[in-house]
């Protein structure tokens, strides 16, 4: 009987810690950003997915689109693609290996820092990228708007 009690307490402690960790970690979002010159206001999840998986090369308004990626192996990249597609980052990398090495398409160009990403998006009306949650007003000052948010844990 004592063993059952101990196990029950242990179970409660573990689940409480998990719940607390979830709450403490919370849900935050990764923002998909474009230049304000792109004349876009928002994009759906499916549209963002198509642009970042190389299935579409233009925005819904017809403008040329060029996706930019974060560093390979970075946490934000993993969270973004897993949140966006529901697939593991390994599956996404394998998907791009199929496209790249059959000569069909190249994955989005990798930019090494958030500063580079913000600079590229602010100057290039075709650029689309993703960054950790930022203040939209600060982004607007850089000529950048948020068109989609991907929730992550």
């Amino acid at each position, binding site marked *: 009987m004592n063993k059952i009690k101990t196990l029950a307490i242990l179970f409660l402690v573990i689940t409480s810690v998990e719940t607390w960790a979830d709450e403490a970690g919370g849900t935050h979002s990764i923002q998909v950003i474009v230049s304000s010159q792109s004349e876009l206001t928002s994009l*759906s999840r*499916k*549209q963002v997915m*198509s642009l970042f998986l190389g*299935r*579409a*090369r*233009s925005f*819904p308004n017809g403008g040329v689109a060029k996706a930019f990626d974060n560093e*390979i*192996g970075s946490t934000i990249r993993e969270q973004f693609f897993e949140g966006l597609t*529901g*697939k*593991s*980052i*390994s*599956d996404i*990398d*394998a*998907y791009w*290996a*199929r496209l*790249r*090495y*059959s*000569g*069909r398409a*190249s994955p989005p160009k990798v930019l090494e820092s958030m500063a580079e990403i913000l600079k590229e998006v602010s100057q290039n009306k075709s650029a689309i990228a993703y960054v950790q949650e930022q203040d939209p007003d600060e982004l607007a000052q850089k000529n950048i708007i948020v068109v989609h948010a991907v929730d992550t844990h």
Partner: protein
Amino acid sequence: MTDRMLDRCFRPFSKFCNLLQWFTFLLLLGFWQHATAESSPFDDWELTGFGTLGYAESGKYDDLVLKRNITQRSKKIEDHGWLVDSKLGFQVRKELKPHWDVVGQIVAQEKVSNSIEKSIEMAFLRYQSDEMWSFQLGRMVLDTFLLSDHRNVGYSYHSVRPQTEFYAWIPYSHYDGMKTIFEFGDFDSSLRFEAFIGKTKATVNIGYNDDDTSNNYVKSAPIYGAGVTWEKDELTLRAYIARFRFTQNTNAINRLMDTVNNPLVYVPWPESIEIANDYSIENQKVTYSSIGFSWTPGPWLVQGEVSNVTSTFFGSYDGQRAYFQLGHRFGEFLPHMGYSYSWDERDFPYDPPPPDPQLLGLYALLKDNMSSGLIDQSSMTVGVRWDFATQKALKLQCDFATLDDNSLGIYPTQDTPELGTRNWKKSSRSWCSTTFDWVF
């Protein structure tokens, strides 16, 4: 337009393709010397690559050798299990200006009569005229089946190797020619049509021996085909048809012709010439047709293909092939299982010669030739892929294969007599393999 006419039309163009291949390859080599220079002419070149380091129990049995495909040397593979799946590839791509780019790829791997030229899998120039149309010229990978255009890239699929019953017998991996692609769609789904024409060549090791008659040079011109791919969310459907014409006989068939053209053979046994002619591949045609699907809802992976191979001559690979795979990802691990089958139940339809020991020996040899083109076998596969680090995966897989009578079209037997039949009787074998795959 007949195949011969297409071949003639294509000849001047092929010289240009050869030049283009070498140009791209030299650029690939040159990249290494200039890659570190601060302002090099190779700025904005994408240099990437992939590799597989593997080991397979290819020499486990005394009467059968595991092979990945028929372009590998049976004896070499038997003695060096690490050669079965290991390979290293480099790729370069450069956007020359808007709408134009070049792609080159070279892959080092075990192959009969290996050479740098044969290792170039891609070297093409592409013009993307608009969102819908693109045109490619040069050397391109053959993509008649779902995995055939990236089958060298182990990281891109979950199994150790593409299903042997379905993929191992395909002699060609690339072609020199041109390709047109038309694609359209919206953010919901896309449709892609493509058509190609070109020429191709390869050397295949049929059987176990590593000699003149076992290593066969096969050249095809023209090779042409068309396909359609439909993608919607996690579902991909694809149908393809390709056809090629062999331009010349192999060494083994030439040797056979010489033998039956001897009056000591054809006078007492006139049918021997008919049999040899039926084996002849010169100007004969082969057609592949296939349909396949890939469905990846969430962590699941379901994939399958069915193909039909028909030819206008007797000794060719023939029949139907199919496979089905199922996998599920659990974090870093992706366990999977699959079943593949190849149907080919042809019999040797010729009557025996008059009872002369030499003629009976020749009859046995002719009959045995068919075993080299027969794939009547199935495999059950279980395996796991472990993505232990970014863009790196370890794989472990075991295959349980059953080969029907005389089905020696992929896996050869060491019991190959100088004269006579190999007499393979239905039997099962199992092999395990492991690989480390990465991209960079």
